[in-house]
């Protein structure tokens, strides 16, 4: 710890929030509402909407390629290995996932597909026990229930959708199914705040093809808003103009829901809220018996070590960073996959994805007419919407088409037989740009005993602290799932009958290839639950071990669901905030007995 260097000591606050992205901003609102004196510490720079004024974001090289919005590996890299025997090596520049940096976090440069979990996804283990034969799940699969139900989260999903102005078509309102929405979603109390976005031609083609196949297409629930919206915090959004610089970019039009557009101006106006940027929290400090946090230590922009005393510590620094901070601070017992003991780091999981690009001769898609969440989806092959056991796996994927960007450094797909460079490559790019559409799957990834997070024994950050080490590889259950989805997508290809198509699906024996972007849906590692021997957090996201530490983020997911995480991450944050406000503040201590 910081014992050797001088430590600056700051005035105590009621609550300190580590990280000012989506979850930190939500907690800021909730805890200031409760009258607490709240301070947020953010590792990166300050960022306001002024940083995203036109034409600045319309710069593919800066944001889409050099990743200027994102976490710098030079400050905090992650090491990766695929099994317990491999030596983990650092992800030296960002590839597979793109965590955020600076005020707003990844909530600034996210895509904006906003989902709820289904009731079944939140109690997957109970569902499996009821619906699958004994012995069907592999022994090393460690899936669990969340310990919180869909009914408990519904009001929080509902509220966050209003905060964001989510644009979509409801499929199930209070049990009543609605044509054109997702019939497989959990029952909603209310429709989406705004109607769905209009859609580009790929959406229309996908919708027709999947209807022909007897499936149920619906528009992506979108945080790229379809109309002007004023949210419950009084913040205003304007209609998305399909600028085409969305995922990986800050929005130039006040149209993508983000901490900046939906929360931060309202939060900054509150006198009991303050935030400091360029402050990297390195430890949550504990009292002498390790049962209570006394505050946090951070390194400020001038390199000073600072101790910030606080009664309540909210860790909100993104799933992967949260797990690292718990491990560095000695909060909770680190997971050991060999002995199968400990909890911090346990059940890290990812997202199983696949894709098909289709090439046509005579269709104009205008690929630059694009928005992150401009898409059509089917949920016909979700964990509980078909008999996956018959196909040998638990899990599922949603299948979608999206036209999210036409920026050409990264979005000039060519058919499989096209030359990879030279005159032939150029001709292929020219002939196919604007004449291709893509489809993808976003699928579950189960948790396994040998997939986890820990501190790396070899690599350190500039402060001398060990990097986070990720151990992850694909297991046959999940490969079987993605091969099944490939078959379904090939049915869509046959309906649409393109000139040619290129597919990207994992196969048996493939290992986690870290070189390609897959998803920034990193989940698990400090999971929630009702049993302290298998979860780091209780069902209120409170540390089982240190009662005044609450941890927000997808680290709480016991395994990964098919749907994008942020709706559930936000709903869990409001759920936790409610428990803090209604129970914890009245009587600080463990909210569940171990």
């Amino acid at each position, binding site marked *: 710890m910081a014992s050797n260097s001088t430590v600056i000591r700051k005035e105590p606050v009621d609550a300190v929030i580590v990280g000012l992205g989506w979850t930190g901003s939500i907690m800021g609102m909730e805890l200031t509402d409760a009258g607490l004196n709240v301070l947020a510490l953010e590792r990166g720079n300050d960022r306001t*909407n*002024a940083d995203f004024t*036109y*034409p600045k*974001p*319309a*710069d*593919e*090289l800066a944001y889409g*390629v*050099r990743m200027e919005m994102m976490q710098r*590996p*030079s400050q905090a*890299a992650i090491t*990766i*290995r*695929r099994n317990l025997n*491999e030596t*983990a*090596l650092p992800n*030296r*520049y960002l*590839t597979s996932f793109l965590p955020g940096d600076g005020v707003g976090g990844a909530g600034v440069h996210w895509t904006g597909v906003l989902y709820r979990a289904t009731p079944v996804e939140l109690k997957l283990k109970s569902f499996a026990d009821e619906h699958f034969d004994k012995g069907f799940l592999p022994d090393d699969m460690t899936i669990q229930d969340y310990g919180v139900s869909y009914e408990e989260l519904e009001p929080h999903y509902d509220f966050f959708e209003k905060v964001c102005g989510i644009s979509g078509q409801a499929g199930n309102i209070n049990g009543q199914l609605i044509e054109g929405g997702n019939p497989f979603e959990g029952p909603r109390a209310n429709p989406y705040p705004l109607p769905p976005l*209009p*859609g*580009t031609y790929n959406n229309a083609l996908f919708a027709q093809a999947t209807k022909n196949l007897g499936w149920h297409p619906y528009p992506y629930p979108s945080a790229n808003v379809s109309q002007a919206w004023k949210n419950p915090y009084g913040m*205003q959004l*304007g*209609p*998305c*103009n*399909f*600028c085409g610089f969305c995922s990986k970019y800050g929005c130039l039009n*006040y*149209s993508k829901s983000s901490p900046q557009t939906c929360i931060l*101006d309202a939060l900054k106006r509150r006198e009991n809220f303050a935030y400091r940027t360029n402050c990297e929290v390195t430890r949550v400090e504990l009292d002498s018996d390790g049962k209570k946090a006394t505050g946090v230590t951070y390194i400020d922009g001038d390199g000073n070590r600072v101790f910030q005393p606080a009664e309540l510590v909210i860790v909100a620094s993104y799933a992967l960073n949260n797990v690292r901070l718990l491990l560095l601070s000695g909060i909770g017992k680190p997971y050991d996959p060999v002995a199968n003991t400990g909890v911090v780091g346990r059940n890290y999981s990812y997202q199983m994805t696949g894709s098909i690009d289709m090439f046509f001769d005579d*269709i*104009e898609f*205008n690929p*630059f*007419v694009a928005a992150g969440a*401009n898409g059509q989806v089917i949920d016909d092959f979700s964990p509980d919407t078909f008999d996956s056991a018959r196909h040998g796996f638990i899990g599922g994927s949603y299948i979608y088409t999206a036209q999210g960007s*036409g*920026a*050409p*450094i990264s979005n*000039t797909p060519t058919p499989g037989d096209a030359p*990879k*460079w*030279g*005159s032939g490559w*150029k*001709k292929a790019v*020219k002939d196919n*740009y*604007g004449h291709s559409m893509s489809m993808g799957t976003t699928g579950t990834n189960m948790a396994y005993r040998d997939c986890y997070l820990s501190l790396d024994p070899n*690599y*350190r950050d500039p402060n001398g602290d060990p990097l986070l080490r990720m151990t992850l590889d694909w297991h046959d259950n999940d490969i079987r799932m993605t091969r099944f989805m490939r078959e379904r997508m090939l049915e869509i290809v046959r309906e649409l009958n393109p000139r040619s198509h290129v597919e990207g699906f994992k196969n048996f024996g493939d*290992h986690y290839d870290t*070189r390609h972007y897959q998803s920034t849906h990193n989940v698990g590692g400090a999971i929630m639950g009702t049993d302290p021997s298998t979860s780091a957090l209780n069902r209120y996201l409170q540390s089982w071990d240190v009662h005044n530490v609450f941890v927000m983020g997808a680290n709480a997911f016991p395994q990964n669901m098919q749907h994008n995480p942020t709706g559930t991450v936000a709903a869990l944050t409001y759920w936790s905030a409610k428990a803090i406000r209604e129970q914890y503040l009245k009587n600080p201590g463990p909210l569940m007995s171990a």
Partner: protein
Amino acid sequence: MSSMPDDEQRRDFMRRSLTLIPAVSLGSGVTLTASAAEEPPALADYQPSFFNTDEWQFILAACDQLIPSDEHGPGALETNVPIFIDKELYGPFGHADRWYMQGPFITDGDPELGYQLPYTPRELYRHGIAAVERYCQQEHDKAFSALDAATRDDILGRLEQDKIDFAALDAAPLTAGVFFSFLWQNIREGYFADPIYGGNKHMGAWKMIGFTGARANFREWVEQHNVPYPLGPVSLSGERG
């Protein structure tokens, strides 16, 4: 930094997005910087900041092979891609400013674990070009740029497929495949990035494929299905094509 307070700016944007300005007039909102009027340099007049003379000859020749000028559209030389690469290597990217560059550098791990060389992009280019030139001297007794087009293509193909043994050329731990992948990625970047970065001269690559550049306003085009978009690109500095 803008002096406009956030609220005012927001109102301004709300107004703009509600009235849906047509894409044609969008450029009027762009602050035209001095560079919009400036003609990009001719490649022949450009003095590289990073590359030395021999390296520059290699880059020019490789760019010409990898994206040649032909009837399909402009080549990498016409669009100043070498200038882009020189500027990128001279700047923060060349210095790997965002990368994690602490050791140990384990270079014999599984390639699926990603880039593990101890080199910044500048160092990687220096070593890579030197290795290819040594190879050309050994095999052909000439510099890469002095070889005929077919031989250059053959060498680039071998680099791509990692079939030139860089270890035998004293360039380990760099490999031909890794060098090629950086070169090709950076060439495509220079071809398609906004002209402010030095390549894509007069948005030639964008015009060839029909990309709209920084127009960034297409609401009224979303539901015009299967209709070709009629307007050319605009750039960050306000150039129109």
